[in-house]
């Protein structure tokens, strides 16, 4: 199930929207997907990565540096000429060690020539693309800390084993996990931009459609991709237009107040909630090709942007989504 056309994914509208928003504005932060296994989470994430147009990157650069990166990090990526390469999609397995993630001393070269060289890790590979971590809730805490830190700063700083390396690592972090098997600490959850709850499609018709599509894809992957190419292209155009439109959109005073009120009403801790809410609403508006950011966008994205930031009251059984919808109804009627 390596490559599945993004437009052919059925029954995961929320997840697709969140991914597209992250593609339009990567600064939103990662996307956290809660859900059971076999719901098409990784398929969707992978599909988006392969949908996006190739990027221009320095030839032979292990980090896939852009022109700007070359200027900012002259020591790590040299002056290679720009060539096209696919948007990276890195699937980080649960058992990854810190060495493999952030990079480590290049053992081979150290042994061969006693040379102190840096062997880039998964973070380098994911630069300008997506880092997908299934079962992130089972990942060692210190690794999650590290990932979110790098994701936020866009830079991986390695100071260990006598190495001192600084390289760009901007990526959209996509985490997934089933909360029944262990939860993420709230501090970490808060650093994800958007979160969503993915459920397996319950509708029989949808499930049948999915089975059919998968079977078609398996029987003839190329033909299948060709059939969906047009629809994929349309999505691609939307993302590109959204990206172009994004800088022109800004939220008015009223909307900022709405966002602040909403965050207060649901009891979302910290400023990050408000910031993400505004950014996500803006990206959604850009994606939809709207002229301005409106309350409608804010309301549409609020559950995803705030769901994981609510302070937990364990004695209150009400789900986070319900609390947000209630607050929206109360504030905006």
């Amino acid at each position, binding site marked *: 199930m390596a490559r599945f056309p993004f437009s052919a994914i059925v029954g995961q509208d929320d997840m697709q929207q969140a991914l597209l928003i992250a593609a339009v504005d990567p600064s939103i932060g990662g996307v956290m997907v809660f859900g059971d296994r076999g719901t098409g989470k990784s398929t969707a994430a992978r599909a988006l990565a392969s949908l996006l147009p190739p990027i221009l990157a320095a030839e032979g650069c292990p980090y896939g540096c852009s022109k700007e990166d070359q200027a900012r990090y002259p020591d790590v990526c040299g002056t290679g000429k720009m060539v096209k390469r696919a948007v990276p999609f890195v699937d980080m*397995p649960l058992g990854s060690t810190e060495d493999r993630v952030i990079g480590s001393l290049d053992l081979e070269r150290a042994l061969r020539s*006693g040379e102190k060289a840096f062997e880039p890790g998964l973070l380098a590979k994911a630069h300008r693309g997506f880092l997908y971590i299934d079962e992130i809730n089972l*990942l060692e805490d210190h690794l999650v800390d590290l990932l979110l830190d790098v994701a936020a700063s866009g830079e991986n700083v390695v100071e260990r084993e006598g190495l001192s390396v600084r390289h760009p690592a901007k990526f959209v972090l996509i985490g997934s996990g089933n909360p*029944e098997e262990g939860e993420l600490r709230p501090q970490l959850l808060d650093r994800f931009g958007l979160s969503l709850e993915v459920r397996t499609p319950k509708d*029989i018709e949808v499930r049948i459609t999915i*089975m059919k599509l998968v079977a078609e894809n398996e029987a003839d992957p190329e033909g299948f991709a060709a059939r969906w190419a047009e629809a994929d292209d349309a999505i691609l155009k939307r993302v590109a237009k959204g990206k172009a439109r994004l800088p022109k959109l800004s939220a008015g005073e009223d909307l900022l107040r709405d966002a602040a009120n909403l965050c207060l009403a649901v009891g979302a801790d910290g400023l990050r909630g408000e910031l993400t809410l505004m950014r996500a609403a803006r990206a959604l508006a850009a994606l939809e090709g709207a002229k301005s950011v409106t309350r409608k966008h804010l309301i549409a994205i609020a559950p995803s942007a705030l769901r994981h930031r609510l302070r937990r009251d364990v004695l209150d059984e009400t789900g986070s989504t319900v609390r947000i919808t209630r607050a929206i109804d109360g504030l905006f009627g």
Partner: protein
Amino acid sequence: MTVEGLGAPPADPLEDAVLAARLFVSAPQVFKGMVLRGPGPGREALVAALAENIALRRLPGHVDDERLLGGIDLAASLSAGRPIRQTGLIEEAQGGALIAGMAERMDGAIAGRLGQALDEGATALVLLDDASEPEEGPPQSLSERVAFIADLSASRRWQGVELAPAAGHLADVAPLDDAALRALAATAEALGVDSLRALIFAGETARALAALGGRDTADKSDLSGAVRLVLAPRATRLPPQQQDAPPEEPPPPPPDGERDDQSNSEQQQQEPDLSEILVEAAKTSIPADLLASLVQGKAPRRSSSSGTGQKRKAATRGKPLGARPGMPRGGAKLALIDSLRAAVPWQAVRRREAGANDTSSILMRKEDLRIRRFEERAARVTIFAVDASGSAAAARLAEAKGAVELMLAQAYVTRSEVALVAFRGTTAELLLPPTRSLTRARRTLSQLPGGGGTPLALGLNAAREVAESVIARGRSAALVILTDGRANIAADGSPGRPQAAADTAVAAKAIAASGIDALVVDISARPGPEGAALANALGGRFLALPRADARMLQQAINAVQPIGRAA
């Protein structure tokens, strides 16, 4: 053997496993592998038969990343003076399958790697599951990704296991029609199989069964075979009774379906109740323990029982300590700088020994190698033993539950874990194995019933067992016992205060002897002397909180015994 007449239950579970194995070897890339549960001669015969049809590589449980994925063979590189690569097991098993014994104990890290390899189609996987408890099993991330799960525990056969080759090819079988897809989807729904992967596997299985029999379209028997082999072993609920089945899935036409079959004209020959037939077929191979766990009101799903992410190893991660001599294997990491440092003083000597023909810049020997050590804080597990009997609980059980939830909420922030043992009537039960999951705990707590006698000794013993297993895994354990201490059920379940009190004293002494921290909290409205006496016997502390609500209770327990301050 033929695949006809699949509606009838197979005589022995081995037959279905053999059928699944034939399908698997006919298209290993499609089906990705199988889980074989229950050791025994039947399974051995099946594995031997598998080995004749597909290249099987053994995957040892202690395999490390280097061996799994390939990398530099350090020892060989050093002696050769140039880097020597070794291929990883996953690569070596390309086109064949890896076979893992004791898969229920598989490390989460290895499972993660293998899951990825399965997704990429790099290899297939045969998991031998020797779990003795129904709660245990191979990592879910893997059993989810392979098509077949066969339970051979009840198998009594082992002779004549042969994997007859398929008569046709999977590629020649037509895609399933709408009616077949619908029936499979409805059956999955009835069995509570949510995963789409399982559904997709079921569809391919039906087609592969047709290929086995040399047919070019999957028929009813193929579909019921697919349900039996793929969907039924994953069932999380019992299918509704036959009479109730039709309202469950409106799409397939009810009994008079042959007439109003207007929507899909190509499926005229379709009998009206295909999904019913399939559900019926599934019933023969629904796991036996499903019923038991449903009766107990437990979540039927096998939770992350493999303990992925729960067991914490030292020696591989955590706060770095100094390096020590040793080979970097079994997950231990090479401390390169320390190794080089160890080698440097010898360079002059070694160069002389090696002569001028050795031009490598550093001469390393095996004994120079240093591995890194790490210190990992032992996770703390707080075990709550909650008295849910009539005497203690009637009024206060809600508070106890609330306090447990609050402490759990705090525990998961501080990365410690919580377990819950409840005792009432004549039993004590581990309701919540050590976990950090608030969601799971809340569900368990909401199902905790109250009333009945007070088998305090049983509760203490159960709590001690949990504590001991926690300690055996290198973590520290603390007991919080919420009770009034008025035991009236003896350790053997018989009523009677004197015997119950004596048994309680014995149980308490055992806990004191193992040096487990204990705290007794009496939350009854009128605390008597029993609670304090119990705490005394436990060598622990006592807290009487007659009027506390959940929050006060939590604060009080915290004050006495901070949870989550890791030891």
